[in-house]
C-alpha cells in the first residue's frame, strides 16, 4: 500500500511536471520549416534539450535564458516567457562558405561580417574595403562594384532582391548609388553565386538590403559633415515612427551631398569630379493581427552635375524611382507555405552631355558635342516560400521581370554645316525573365550539412524597333526574332563543423548566362576601358561557368580567421572581337562574340585579433588571377594583390581606427583585348577618431584619409584617374 501511494505520488508529480512544461518550436527564419536536432543550452552552456522531428522541444519554466544551436544556423540567445512558442533561427552556416553579411548599422563583430564604422562613409568606399570586392572607378562618383574580377553582366546587383537595370550605356549609374549608407540595413554578398535558388543565375551577387520600418515609437538620427579640400557637404536624416502596438510604422531617410572637384596627391585639382546628390527613402509597414504584414517601400534618388573625368562627358541628371510592395506571410505549419510575395517597379533615367568639355581638342569624337540619354523601366515580382513533400522540406523561389531599355546619342558638330547625327544605342530592347528555384538542406550528420540548390530560368531578349532590328539583321546577315534561352543553374554546398571553433566548407556552382541587353542589342557603345565602340550580337551562345569554392574558418573569442579559395572556369566567354573592316585611327569597332574560355582563381583571407579589451587588429587580403585562355593574356580590370589592415582602439565612447590600405603592383594586363597599362603599388593610411557624448547619443567623427598625401591610382581606375589626396572630414551625428 505504501509502495502504491509512493507510485501514485511519483506519477502525479511527473504528470504535473509534464503539464507544466512549455512547448516551443524552432523554425528556419527564411523558410519557416522546422529544425530537428537543434540543441537547447542553458545559461551555463549545458544541453538541456534537443528538438524532435517537428522541431519542437519542451522546457521547464524555470529556465529563463536559453541558447539555441543548430547546424547550419546562427546561435540564438533568448529570454523565455510563457508567450514564447516559436523561435526562428537565421540560416548562417552557408554564409561561411558563400556569403558575407555586411552590416550597415548593427554592431556585429565576427569574421563573416563587416560593419560600417563611419556613418558618413559613402557606399562606394564601404564596398571597396571588403575583401574580394573592388570598384571600377571613373571619378569620384558612381563606382561600379566588381566581385572577384567579375562585374556588370557577370554579377547580380540587386536592391532588396529587385532587378534594377542601369540606364547609362556607359555604366555611369551603378545601382549601388541609389542606396545611401544611412538606409542600408545589410549587404548580402554571395561571392561564389551558390545561392542559385534565389539569385537565379549562379552569378556572384550583391543584395543591398535597405532599412525597414520597426516598432520603435519615435527615433531620429541626424548627421552632417564637411570634408576638405573638396568641400563635400553632407546632411543625412532618418527616423522611425510607429503606433503604440507597433502595427503601423513608418521609416524615412533622406540625404543630400554636394562636392566640388577633389585634389589628387600631387595637390593638383582633378577636374570634373564634382557631384550633387539627393536621396529619399520611405518605408511603411503594417502588421495584421494574424501576423501577416505588408510593406511599401519607395526610393527616389536624384543626382545632378556629376563629373566623370575618365569619360568624355558628365552626367547632368541621373534619376531613379524604385518602388516595392511586399506581403510577408506569418509562419504556418502547412505543407505548402508562402513566405513573401513582392511586386516592384523601377524607372531609371540618365542624361549626360559634354557641353562643358573642350570637345575641339580631344582625341575621340573630336569636334562635336554628344548629349546622351538612357532609360530603363522594369516591372517584376518575386515569390518565396517553402514546402514539405513526403517529409522532405525545401525552400522555393519564383522570380519574374520584364524590362525595357532605351539609349540614344545625339552628335552635334562644331561645324555648323554638318547635319546633326543620331545613334540609337538601345531602342525598345525588351528583356523578359522568369525563373523558379529550389533550395534543399540535408543534415548528413550532427556536424555535416549538405545544401543543394537548383534554378531553371526562361529568358528572352528582343528589340521592338524595326530600325534597330534591321541593323543587326544587316550586320550579321540573318533574320532576327526574339532570342530565347532556357538557363539551368545548380549548386552544391557541403559544410563540416569540425568542432566549435573550426568549420570548413566547399561549394560547386554550374551556371549558364545569356548575354544581357547590351551584349545582344547594344549598338555603337563606347567602352572606356579599351577605347572601342561595341556592337551587340543577338546570336551569342550561352556563356557557361563552373565555380568551385573552398572555405575554412576558425572562430574563437580572441582570434578568428577565414580563408576562401575559388576557381572559376568560363566556357564560351563573351567578349569583344575586332571589326577591322570598319575601324580606322579615329573609330575602332568591336562586336561581342563567344571568344573561347577564361579562368579566374584566387582567394580572400580575413583575420581578427582581439589584442586586449581596447585593441583589435583586423587584416584582409584578396587576390584574383584571371586569364583569357583563348588569347593567352590576362583579363582586363583585375585588381592586384591588395589588403587592408585596421587597428581599432576603443575606450568607452572614444574610438580610433587606423587603416592601412595597400595594393601590389599589377603587371598582369590585357593588351590584346584591351589597352591596359601596369599600375604601381601603393599604400595609404587613413585615421578615424570618434567620440561619443551624452550617452553616445551625440557622436563626432574626425576622419583623415590618405594622410601621407600619396599620389596614386588603382588598377581599376578607368583612364588612370588619380585618387583623392589628403582629406579631412568632420562629422556630427545626433541620435534621438
Amino acid at each position, binding site marked *: 500500500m505504501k509502495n502504491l501511494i509512493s507510485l501514485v505520488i511519483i506519477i502525479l508529480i511527473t504528470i504535473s511536471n509534464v503539464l507544466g512544461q512549455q512547448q516551443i518550436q524552432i523554425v528556419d527564419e527564411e523558410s519557416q520549416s522546422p529544425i530537428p536536432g537543434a540543441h537547447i543550452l542553458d545559461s551555463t552552456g549545458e544541453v538541456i534539450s534537443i528538438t524532435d522531428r517537428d522541431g519542437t522541444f519542451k522546457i521547464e519554466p524555470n529556465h529563463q535564458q536559453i541558447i539555441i544551436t543548430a547546424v547550419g544556423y546562427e546561435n540564438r540567445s533568448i529570454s523565455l516567457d510563457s508567450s514564447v512558442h516559436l523561435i526562428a533561427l537565421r540560416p548562417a552556416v552557408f554564409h561561411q562558405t558563400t556569403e558575407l553579411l555586411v552590416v550597415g548599422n548593427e554592431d556585429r563583430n565576427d569574421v563573416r561580417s563587416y560593419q560600417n564604422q563611419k556613418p558618413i562613409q559613402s557606399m562606394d568606399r564601404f564596398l571597396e574595403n571588403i575583401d574580394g570586392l573592388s570598384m571600377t572607378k571613373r571619378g569620384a562618383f558612381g563606382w561600379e562594384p566588381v566581385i572577384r574580377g567579375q562585374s556588370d553582366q557577370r554579377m547580380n546587383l540587386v536592391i532588396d532582391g529587385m532587378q534594377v537595370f542601369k540606364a547609362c550605356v556607359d555604366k555611369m549609374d551603378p545601382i549601388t548609388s541609389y542606396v545611401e549608407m544611412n538606409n542600408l540595413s545589410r549587404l548580402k554578398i554571395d561571392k561564389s553565386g551558390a545561392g542559385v535558388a534565389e539569385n537565379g543565375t549562379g552569378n556572384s551577387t550583391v543584395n543591398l538590403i535597405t532599412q525597414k520600418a520597426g516598432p520603435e515609437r519615435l527615433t531620429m538620427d541626424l548627421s552632417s559633415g564637411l570634408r576638405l579640400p573638396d568641400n563635400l557637404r553632407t546632411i543625412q536624416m532618418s527616423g522611425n515612427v510607429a503606433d503604440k502596438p507597433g502595427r503601423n510604422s513608418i521609416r524615412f531617410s533622406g540625404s543630400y551631398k554636394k562636392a566640388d572637384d577633389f585634389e589628387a596627391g600631387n595637390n593638383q585639382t582633378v577636374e570634373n569630379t564634382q557631384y550633387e546628390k539627393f536621396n529619399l527613402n520611405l518605408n511603411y509597414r503594417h502588421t495584421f493581427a494574424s501576423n501577416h504584414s505588408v510593406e511599401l517601400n519607395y526610393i527616389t534618388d536624384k543626382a545632378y552635375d556629376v563629373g566623370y573625368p575618365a569619360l568624355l562627358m558628365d552626367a547632368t541628371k541621373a534619376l531613379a524611382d524604385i518602388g516595392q510592395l511586399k506581403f510577408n506571410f506569418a509562419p504556418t505549419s502547412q505543407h505548402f507555405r508562402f513566405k513573401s510575395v513582392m511586386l516592384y517597379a523601377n524607372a531609371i533615367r540618365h542624361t549626360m552631355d559634354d557641353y562643358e568639355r573642350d570637345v575641339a581638342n580631344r582625341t575621340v569624337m573630336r*569636334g*562635336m558635342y554628344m548629349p546622351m540619354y538612357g532609360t530603363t523601366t522594369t516591372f517584376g515580382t518575386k515569390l518565396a516560400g517553402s514546402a514539405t513533400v513526403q517529409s522532405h522540406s525545401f525552400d522555393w523561389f519564383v522570380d519574374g521581370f520584364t524590362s525595357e531599355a532605351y539609349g540614344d546619342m545625339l552628335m552635334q558638330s562644331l561645324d555648323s554645316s*554638318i547635319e546633326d*547625327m543620331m545613334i540609337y544605342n538601345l531602342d525598345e530592347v525588351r528583356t523578359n525573365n522568369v525563373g523558379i528555384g529550389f533550395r534543399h538542406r540535408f543534415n548528413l550528420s550532427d556536424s555535416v550539412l549538405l545544401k543543394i540548390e537548383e534554378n531553371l530560368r526562361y529568358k528572352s531578349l528582343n528589340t521592338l*524597333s524595326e530600325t534597330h*532590328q*534591321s*541593323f543587326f539583321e*544587316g550586320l550579321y546577315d540573318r533574320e532576327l526574332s526574339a532570342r530565347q534561352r532556357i538557363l539551368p543553374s545548380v549548386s552544391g554546398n557541403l559544410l563540416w563543423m569540425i568542432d566549435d571553433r573550426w568549420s570548413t566548407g566547399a561549394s560547386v556552382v554550374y551556371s549558364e548566362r545569356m548575354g544581357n541587353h547590351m551584349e545582344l542589342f547594344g549598338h555603337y557603345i563606347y567602352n572606356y576601358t579599351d577605347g572601342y565602340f561595341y556592337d551587340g550580337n543577338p546570336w551569342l551562345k550561352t556563356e557557361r561557368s563552373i565555380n568551385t569554392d573552398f572555405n575554412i574558418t576558425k572562430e574563437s573569442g580572441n582570434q578568428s580567421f577565414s580563408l576562401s579559395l575559388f576557381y572559376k572556369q568560363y566556357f564560351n566567354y563573351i567578349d569583344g572581337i575586332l571589326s577591322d573592316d570598319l575601324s580606322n585611327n579615329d*573609330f575602332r569597332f568591336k562586336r561581342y562574340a563567344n571568344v573561347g574560355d577564361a579562368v579566374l582563381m584566387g582567394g580572400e583571407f580575413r583575420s581578427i585579433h582581439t589584442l586586449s579589451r581596447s585593441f583589435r587588429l583586423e587584416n584582409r587580403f584578396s587576390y584574383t588571377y584571371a586569364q583569357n585562355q583563348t588569347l593567352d593574356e590576362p583579363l582586363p580590370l583585375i585588381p592586384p594583390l591588395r589588403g587592408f589592415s585596421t587597428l581599432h582602439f576603443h575606450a568607452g565612447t572614444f574610438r580610433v581606427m587606423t587603416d592601412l590600405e595597400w595594393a601590389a603592383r599589377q603587371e598582369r594586363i590585357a593588351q590584346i583585348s584591351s589597352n591596359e597599362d601596369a599600375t604601381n603599388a601603393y599604400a595609404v593610411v587613413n585615421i578615424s577618431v570618434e567620440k561619443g557624448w551624452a550617452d553616445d547619443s551625440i557622436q563626432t567623427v574626425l576622419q583623415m584619409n590618405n594622410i601621407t598625401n600619396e599620389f596614386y591610382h588603382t588598377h581599376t581606375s578607368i583612364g588612370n584617374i588619380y585618387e583623392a589626396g589628403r582629406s579631412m572630414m568632420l562629422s556630427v551625428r545626433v541620435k534621438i
Partner: protein
Amino acid sequence: MRLSISMGRMMAMAALVLAVASCNTNNSNSELDLIPVNSVTVQEYTVSLFAEKEPETGFNMLYWQIEKDGDRIEPQQFSITPMMDMGEMMHSTPYTEPQTAEEDDRYLKNMVVFIMPGGAMGSWSVPFEIRTQDDQLITGELPINVDSSWKLTSVRSESDKIYFITWYSPQNPVSGNNELAFMVHTRESMMSFPPVSDAELLVYPYMDMGGGSGHSTDFTNPVATGNGMYEGDINYSMSGVWTTSVELTVNGETLPEVVFEYSVQAK
C-alpha cells in the same frame, strides 16, 4: 488669261486629288500612296499621271490612268516617250513602257530615269499614244516638271562614253539595314539609253563627322542582277549626312569615282 489658266490647272489638280482619293477608297487592297502630277485631255480622253513623289532626277515610278467621260478605260496599248526639249536639241532618257501595275490594276506604270532636271536648260514632257479597244489612235503630250536630286550622277569613260549611275534604293535612307541598289545606263544615241548589266561596282559609305574624323559602316557591295540593276545592302549605324562613293568598272576600264551625298534619317 493667266487667271483662267491657273484656275483651270487648279480645277484639274482638284479633280486629280479627288480621283486619287476615290481610287484609294475604292480599292482597299492597294497600298499605293500616290500624288497627282499632271493630266491632259485629248479628244475626250483624259490621261492622268501620278507618282509616289514629285518627279526628280534619277529613278521614278510613273503611274498612268486613262479616262473617257469620267470612266476609266483600258486601252489596247499605251506607250510613252519621255523627251527633254533643250531648244537646240532634244533627247530621251532611260525608261520602260507602261504595263498594268501588279499592285493596283487600275493603273499602268513604268520606270523612268530622268537624267537631268527641268528648268532653264530645257523642259520635260511625255508624248504618248493611246490605241483604244476600237483601234482608234490618240496622241498627246503631257508636260511635267522634274526637280533636281542627289540620286543621279554620271561618269565618262576615256572614250567619252557616258554612264548614268542611278541611286535606286534606299529612296529614303534610315538608320539600320537598307537595300542598296543602283541602276547603270549608258547612252547610245539621243533616243537610246540601254542598261549596262556587265559592269562591276565598288562602293564605300562614309560619314564625315567633322574635325577631320569619320567612319564607314557595314555594307555589302552591290552585284549585277540584270537589266542594269546592281543590288547589295547598307547598314547605317547612325543618322546624319553620309556619302557613298561608287567606282564603276566597265569592260575592264575603271572609271573615275563618283560620290552620292545624302541624309539618313534616324527612323
